């Protein structure tokens, strides 16, 4: 085989060359470039020569620290309290800017929690990156199972021989055909804080009791709002994949189950679900990867705000690389994202492997 591929197949190679060339130029090379550039201080445009900096970018981005703040005490050793009776703590700044703690220098507060009288503060050298990472993971954790489950539900509903069922198939699939940018723009109107469709509808349904909410302007609801929209947008696509899986299951298996007296749930449990195993693995991996790549919705709807509540890794990679012309920083995020997705995909494959 190998000899046939390499020797007697010149025309074949010639035909394959343009395709290979494009793939190499736009996928393979950039992939390795990202690795290389993440080890330098490359900027998009800069008069200074590029320098190799080793793992400094990763250190600057991934650095974390945990400090415990003791409440301030007076000379008698009593805890100093303010008017509301709350203990007073030294400011985090006194640590991150102090020469006493060089390891925390330049870090900022990511989040904190109290334990007893003390407060634990998690410091990060790149708080925005960590917020983006946390948001992305949260997005994946919620969107992947919910979207897969909704898509399966729709597929089961649609996989029936009813008059006009094709109308529903088309309806559910429609959002997939529309560009995500257009969808995001439309949903920005739906979520609008003053007279958006969602607020109007909620107001109407609650007879005016609901006063309106700025869905994308509130850090608490911005990310959930984007999740809901993202689930709605791609659910039709996964529904079609589930449907294809459903239709590969032999109808005789259902008849055999009927003869044994299986209930609807037992039919699903013993026939449908095992028959969808491979489809489920595919869908889970595809949704996970798509969810990790969350960008367009953020770019169109919130730009990462408010208060970094919708920052994501891909958005940060683009923002740093092109917005701030920090190519090495963007590359570093890309590499971290790649390793993350690779690890999760491998874990998923291992968890869903065929057990002998």
């Amino acid at each position: 085989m190998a000899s046939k591929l390499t020797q007697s197949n010149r025309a074949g190679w010639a035909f394959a060359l343009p395709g290979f060339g494009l793939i190499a130029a736009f996928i393979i090379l950039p992939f390795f470039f990202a690795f290389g550039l993440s080890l330098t201080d490359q900027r998009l445009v800069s008069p200074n020569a590029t320098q190799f900096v080793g793992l400094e970018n990763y250190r600057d981005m991934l650095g974390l620290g945990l400090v415990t703040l003791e409440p301030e005490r007076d000379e008698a050793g009593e805890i100093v309290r303010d008017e509301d009776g709350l203990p007073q703590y030294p400011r985090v700044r006194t640590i991150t800017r102090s020469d006493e703690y060089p390891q925390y220098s330049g870090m900022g507060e990511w989040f904190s929690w109290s334990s007893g009288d003390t407060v634990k503060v998690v410091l990060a050298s790149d708080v925005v990156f960590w917020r983006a990472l946390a948001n992305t993971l949260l997005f994946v954790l919620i969107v992947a199972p919910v979207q897969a489950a909704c898509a399966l539900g729709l597929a089961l509903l649609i996989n029936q021989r009813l008059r006009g069922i094709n109308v529903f198939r088309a309806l559910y699939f429609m959002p997939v055909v529309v560009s995500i940018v257009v969808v995001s723009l439309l949903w920005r109107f739906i979520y609008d804080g003053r007279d958006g469709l969602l607020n109007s509808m909620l107001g109407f349904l609650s007879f005016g009791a609901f006063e309106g909410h700025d869905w994308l302007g509130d850090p608490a609801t911005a990310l959930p709002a984007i999740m809901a929209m993202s689930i709605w947008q791609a659910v039709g696509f996964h529904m079609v994949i589930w449907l294809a899986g459903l239709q590969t299951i032999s109808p005789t298996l259902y008849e055999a189950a009927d003869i044994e007296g299986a209930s609807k749930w037992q039919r699903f449990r013993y026939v449908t679900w095992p028959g969808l195993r491979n489809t489920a693995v595919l869908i889970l991996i595809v949704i996970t990867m798509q969810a990790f790549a969350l960008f367009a919705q953020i770019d169109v709807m919130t730009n990462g705000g408010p208060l970094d509540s919708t920052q994501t890794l891909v958005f940060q990679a683009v923002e740093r690389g092109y917005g701030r012309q920090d190519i090495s920083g963007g590359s570093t995020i890309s590499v971290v994202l790649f390793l993350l997705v690779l690890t999760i995909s491998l874990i998923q494959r291992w968890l869903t492997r065929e057990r002998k």
Partner: protein
Amino acid sequence: MAEVRLRNVRKSFGKAEVIKGVDIDIEDGEFVVFVGPSGCGKSTLLRMIAGLEDITSGTLEIGGRVVNDIQPKERGIAMVFQTYAIFPHMTVRENMAFGLTISGAGKEEKKTKVQEAARILQMEHLLDRRPSQLSGGQRQRVAIGRAIVRDPQVFLFDEPLSNLDAALRMSMRMEIGKLHQTLGTSMIYVTHDQVEAMTLADKIVVLRGGEVMQVGSPMELYHEPANLFVAGFLGAPSMNFVEVKVEGVQGHEARVSAPALEPITVATKGRPIVAGDTAILGIRPQYLRPVADAEGMLHGTVELTERLGSETVVDVALRDGSKLIAALPEDTVLERGRNVGFDFDPAQAHLFPREEAMADAPH
């Protein structure tokens, strides 16, 4: 007590009626085969008995109880499908115990019942395998095992051997025959293969176009076919049909002749044969004896000889140009182009009215 009775059973899909009023009685412990060409409704009929298809009208009784509107599970039946319908993700053991799992039976009950079925089918060593590790015959055995575990009053088989290769088909056919002897349960078996029908059945039901053509034991059907269709359907090679002229009818006998046939007298068996009409004379290829051209009752020229070892099949062109097939014992050699005569016993021939042939378009 598990006799099955169908009374004027009909089935329509929209406007198309596929089962046109069928009456069949299946006694307890009987092995009944539904046979017929594809599209005759035999599988539909079986699926109606199983409860996988509704019965449009008529009644279906199993064990003295009308089950028209009863769920498949409650009918006391088990079904074996052509495509096995075993679950690929379960082991053989789990597949066989599936019905018990569904009804929430205990571990012990499952174990004993599966062991018992596996013992009957001699497949204890396969219990922990998965279907992908089994051959076609073994898979079908799993499906039969699952049916046995259900302990049904009636077994239903829907072309269970059609997906197997020829050698396996024969051994599985024998196994199913033995299984019936061992269990003594009523079995209904659908096939388009007349060998399966002839060898397995206590009673054969021949179907065509949603109607019963004849019901009877294999030998009854072979020797006394009720009509042209049954005559042509059973037996291999199939029965020869010679168009003849009815010269005269006397009582239960008719005198017939044809250009290639010497005048003979054949029993009419109560069929409407009228003097002066054209009729169809049926003779099985096995009942033809080759003789010298001048002595035979049929005259023709040998066109092709196929020697099978156990018999020799000879294609003959009769004098009027029509075809005749003779199955001769063992290695009889008749060279091509030779004029030959055939003799037969008129008592073994059948006479059918011409109208039946018109309705049939002989195959």
